[in-house]
């Protein structure tokens, strides 16, 4: 089990988040990658998602987000940068050949910069617009951008199990991003829905999710 208080690698995570965000905070991606390659890590819980972060934390993560990754003297932020770093260390996450490596990195960044913003907007509007009259028209305007991206992604994936011959950080990131898609929007593309199912059925994903949820559960028990 990779969560180990004595591990050399440390990641930060929140102690508590609202129920809708449980399982969806971005330390999940890093936990998942670490589980895939059996690298033990310890957790540093930094309080609730809405609490002000101490100034020292902002030195590690300028926007006060999670996760921050530490490994010996190295500190890294942004889940994409952390996955790339882990991929460089293990070809189970990032193949060594230049062509396949390039494809995996292109897809990881596509997930972060071309797909996630369209889905994240829907989540943000849904939360920030709660009980506001503008929420529904704003979401109606945002939905076509997300739907178009998902249709293009479905066409690019086709009937393959993974983007490449084997699972990579490109799949890991794409699948974690797609988990935020509205259920009906994802279900409109059976191959994408199956892709997310295939990814989230991986034992490493399940262990990572359980570890994130356990951190919240321990906190709510009042430890």
């Amino acid at each position, binding site marked *: 089990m990779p969560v180990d208080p004595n591990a050399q690698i440390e990641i930060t995570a929140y102690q508590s988040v609202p129920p809708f965000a449980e399982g969806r905070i971005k330390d999940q991606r890093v936990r998942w990658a670490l589980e895939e390659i059996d690298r033990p890590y310890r957790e540093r819980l930094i309080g609730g998602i809405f609490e002000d972060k101490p100034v020292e934390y*902002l030195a590690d993560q*300028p*926007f*006060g*987000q999670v996760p921050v990754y530490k490994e010996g*003297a*190295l*500190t*890294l*932020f*942004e*889940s*994409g*940068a952390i996955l*790339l*770093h882990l991929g460089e260390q293990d070809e189970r996450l990032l193949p060594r050949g*230049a*062509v396949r490596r*390039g494809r995996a*990195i*292109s897809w*990881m*960044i*596509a997930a*972060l*910069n*071309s797909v*996630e*913003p*369209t889905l*994240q*907007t829907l989540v*943000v*509007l849904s939360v*920030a*617009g709660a009980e*506001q*009259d*503008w929420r529904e*028209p*704003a979401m109606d*305007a*945002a939905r076509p*951008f997300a739907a178009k*991206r998902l249709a*293009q*992604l479905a*066409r*690019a994936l086709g009937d393959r199990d993974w983007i490449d011959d084997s699972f990579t950080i490109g799949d890991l990131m794409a699948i974690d991003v797609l988990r935020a898609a509205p259920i009906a929007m994802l279900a409109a593309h059976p191959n994408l829905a199956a892709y997310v199912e295939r990814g989230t059925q991986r034992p490493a994903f399940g262990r990572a999710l359980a570890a994130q949820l356990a951190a919240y559960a321990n906190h709510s028990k009042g430890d």
Partner: protein
Amino acid sequence: MPVNPDADIQIIAFDWVPDFARGFVRDLRPRWACEELGIDYAEELISAVKRPLDHYRLQPWGQVPVLRDGDITLFESGAIMLHLAAKDARLLPTGAQARADATAWVFAALNSVEPMMFELGNVDIFSKDEEWAKLRRPGLIDFIRTRFGRLSDALGDNDYLLGDFSIADIAMATVLREGVEAGLIAEYPRLAAYLDRCTGRPAFQRAMAAQLASFKEEPVTA
């Protein structure tokens, strides 16, 4: 002069875009990186109006840029920036922590700052006459201000994000340019000076000139 039809590296870009997009299409990022390093690149210009169908095999969204470098084909400007930067310590420093910082800032630009610029674009451009957009805007602006404030603090008195210029600045400056029209950058003197410093670099100016020079006056539809 890096634009060279015989170069080993090819960048796929559009041969025409509407006026508002000129100077903002994302092949600007790899052009800028090539100019900083003095690496020649060839342009392969395609129609944005009638995109070649096989282009979607290279670029699932039908967008640009795509970069070819020998056997390697890359899409997404972020992936292309990292690939070009890895060729030279002037864009990606070799020390482990400095390299980690540069990479982290590239991702921060693409995943923590640019998504807010996309939403601002929806509110200010695509939906600007909608009632909901006027009501949504103040909350979005508050959110962007919080993040710009943090970015300004992180930059501090440095000239560039890592101190010395790196790929992180190509990523962040091209993202910040997307917010200039909303007037937000001007509220943060350090960020405004930073953006001027980045876009004042001769390599940026040459990259911009090369992008603008590649556009035809009218779209080619045939």
